[in-house]
């Protein structure tokens, strides 16, 4: 059952990566990246049980925290003036994709 769950989570990570690549807006990409990070936490936990090494849980814990901080960091960066300026220059091409 652990193997089945591992495969399922790998598939979900693949779907998240697809959304991350095709996602029309920046926020879709950040959202998919956030989901990818959460699924990584689950994957590490399950792998720890699958390999009989519960120490992996520590890594999962740290990964959960780093994932959150990176998402908030990217969002704070996206609030900055320079970033908005560069986004407005790219805006027409992004609208075309939608």
């Amino acid at each position, binding site marked *: 059952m652990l193997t089945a*769950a591992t495969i399922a989570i790998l598939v979900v990570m693949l779907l998240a990566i697809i959304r991350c690549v095709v996602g029309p807006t920046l926020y879709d990409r950040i*959202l998919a990246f956030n989901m990818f990070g959460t699924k990584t936490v689950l994957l590490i936990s399950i792998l720890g049980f699958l390999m009989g090494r519960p120490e992996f849980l520590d890594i999962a814990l740290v990964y959960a925290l780093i994932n959150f901080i990176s998402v908030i960091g990217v*969002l704070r960066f996206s609030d900055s003036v320079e970033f908005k300026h560069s986004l407005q220059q790219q805006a027409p091409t992004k609208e075309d994709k939608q």
Partner: protein
Amino acid sequence: MSLILEIGSGLCLLLGSFICLSGGVGILRFPDFYTRIHAVGVTDTLGAGLILTGLMLISPDGLVLLKLIMILLFTLFINPTASHALAKAALRNNLKPVLDDSSDKGGDKPSKL
């Protein structure tokens, strides 16, 4: 006793995997950013909760159980905050949500909770 725990953990893992898969399909299928947040919310609350519960049921000792509970708590506390920050930043940067006017779609097919 241990057999019951194993069966319960298997069920939890299977159900959690299915819900995570549904969320993964949802993030590809839903039409715009704001609706995709809900798909991610599904995988982050019940999907992660069920998978971690399934792991808790087969945890070898109490310390592993405590760590799994801690991971679950962090997931449940962190993800709403990240979702809210994302939605607020997107709305501030003028990303317009696709809204339903309830005349074209909602009218002929009422969705029940």
